[in-house]
């Protein structure tokens, strides 16, 4: 598998603010990579730099092994799909789809052949002569995609293409998009602030904050092994539980404790965290909740709030000044005010260095 895109040491300054800071990234051919982060984290600027609308202050943009920093946007041939789709409102569907070919001066026959192929791939054949103002959301997205796909771009950049949509259509289009990408083996860089979109579609996710990439990995790596507090909290719904904790050593074991909630590690595991303030972090899905609160290993908590979601139920639990969320099967059906026993498997608990926010275990 060849490397399609390499960003090396990219930095972008606007005046005195740094939008992107020392960003290095590579995308393999056929890969679907998401840039995930809150608004203002620099992901859209990164996209604009790849597309050629912004020049990086420092660093290299390399596509297919060629440095393209000095290639102007209109000559890069990189496909770009916008959040609002940016369909040419004064043109028909056919004119939209053929635009890239027409500005390249292709003949009529070649244009019709290639547009026809893409139109049938995207089920737009019937709509070709319609004015673009009459299209619905799904059709608009397909026209926006088709418009760049006719050019067979080496790289496709998608800038939050689903975030303007209702929940229902978003799910459908998400599936359509991923299926199409796999069918065409198209290399995609996808920008989003929606962790569920990133998790469900990507081969790899790059989590960004304040202009830097904090972590790159497969969706499950990012979910299971976050390397920082930011990544841990940004991914996962309901959000991860984070509690300030104290460390004590009890007979070769390190015990991490928050109030009455205690987790024991063997010494080697937690050694690194022995200095400084720490926090314990664990996913609601990893919390074990039992009706039997008398069990010796369990910590007794009171059910504060119950949110049934159908396939699972989120329970808010409280004891003294400790409050956590847990996910239980719907059959468990806890009642508000009920006392339950809570335990957390040590191997599912992350320890975070409170000062740096880095996950130490």
């Amino acid at each position, binding site marked *: 598998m060849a490397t399609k895109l390499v960003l090396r040491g990219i930095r972008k300054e606007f005046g005195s603010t740094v939008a992107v800071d020392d960003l290095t990234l590579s995308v393999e051919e056929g890969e679907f990579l998401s840039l995930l982060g809150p608004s203002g984290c620099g992901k859209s600027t990164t996209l604009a730099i790849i597309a050629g609308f912004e020049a990086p202050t420092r660093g290299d943009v390399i596509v297919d092994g060629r440095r393209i920093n000095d290639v102007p*946007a*209109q000559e890069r041939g990189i496909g770009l799909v*916008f959040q609002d789709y*940016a369909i040419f409102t004064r043109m028909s569907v056919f004119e939209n789809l053929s*635009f890239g070919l027409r*500005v390249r001066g292709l003949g009529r026959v070649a244009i019709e052949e290639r547009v026809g192929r893409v139109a049938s791939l995207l089920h737009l054949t019937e709509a070709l002569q319609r004015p673009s103002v009459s299209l619905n959301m799904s059709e608009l997205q397909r026209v926006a995609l088709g418009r760049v796909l006719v*050019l067979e771009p080496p790289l496709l950049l998608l800038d939050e293409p689903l975030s303007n949509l209702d929940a229902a259509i978003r799910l459908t289009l998400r599936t359509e998009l991923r299926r199409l990408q796999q069918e065409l083996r198209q290399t995609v860089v996808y920008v989003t602030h929606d962790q569920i979109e990133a998790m469900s579609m990507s081969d790899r996710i790059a989590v960004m904050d304040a202009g830097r990439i904090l972590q790159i990995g497969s969706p499950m790596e990012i979910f299971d092994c976050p390397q920082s507090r930011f990544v841990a909290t940004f991914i996962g719904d309901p959000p991860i539980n984070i509690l300030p904790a104290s460390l004590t050593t009890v007979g070769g074991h390190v015990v991490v404790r928050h109030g009455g909630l205690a987790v024991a590690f063997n010494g080697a595991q937690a050694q690194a965290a022995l200095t400084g303030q720490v926090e314990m972090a664990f996913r609601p899905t990893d919390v074990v909740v039992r009706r039997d609160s008398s069990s010796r290993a369990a910590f007794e908590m009171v059910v504060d709030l119950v949110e049934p979601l159908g396939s699972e139920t989120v329970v808010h639990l409280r004891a003294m000044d400790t409050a956590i969320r847990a996910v239980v099967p719907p059959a468990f059906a806890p009642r508000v005010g009920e006392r339950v026993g809570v335990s957390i498997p040590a191997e599912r608990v992350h320890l975070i260095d409170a000062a740096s926010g880095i996950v130490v275990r």
Partner: protein
Amino acid sequence: MKATVAANSTRNVEAQAEGIRPTLVQHIPFAVWLIVPAEIVLLSVVVFPTLMSLWLSLTSWTPTSGVNWWQAEFQWLANYVQLLFGDERFRAALLRTLLIVVVGVAAEISIGLSLALLFFDDFPWKKIAISAIILPMMIVPVDAANAFFMLFRDVGPVNQLVRILVGHPVRFAWLSDSNLAIVPILLVEIWQWTPLMFLMLLTGLMALPQNQLRAAVALGASRWQLFRRIILPLIAPVVVLSLVIRSVEIFKIFDPVYILTRGGPGTSTETLSMWMYDNGFVYFRIAYVAAAGFLVLLVVLAYVLLILRPLSRRTAAER
């Protein structure tokens, strides 16, 4: 309709509260009251004189004829027939005005659009440059014309600059040569109002959907293709609107002509407004000028409606 009813009922409530007996006045809806003051002014100063001039245009009245204007001798369409078929000077003034409109608007649109495109991208000192470029449209038109009078005098700086460009002594009599005198008039108009065209088009450009432009660039459009296939169709309504507004304005051109040449030398720069001024206020051919005024009104109305109708229909359809 609904609003009018609501307004009526609130009025009635008010009237009862204040203990006023309903009078005829209160039956006139509130909505109509709002336009009454404006209407009184417009009726007395514009509509009444217009109707009066419709009457006058069908008579042979002049202030020197010794009868009151309403007792003037009625002569049907004689004035109109004379204007259209017998008055070479009027026809020349009309054609000259149309020429000024065409040349002026064409120059203003092409310069204004080029400038607006130059200012499309950001660059340092952009705001200051814009402020400088739009300064002419804020100058009092009479002062602008006077300034150009000074520039185009035979000892003025324009001749000096032309001389430097040509390389040997020339001294054009810009304002007293019947072939040249139209040039300073056109230049004042273009100088003063291209900034407005520039501002209108720049405002239009800035309101364009940025992503459509970026999408076209990413799809490989060159500067020219972007302009021709994306920008131009999108700002066409603004261009048409600017064109209508400016052409109607230039059609009325008077101040620069009066200041620079008074229509001369001879009648070589006489525009419609100048012609009407001379005939009305110098020769007192009031009835004749009234007829000309009506012809002009019809022409302008037809022109505006012809161009604006399809435009407003299209923008309505797009909403």
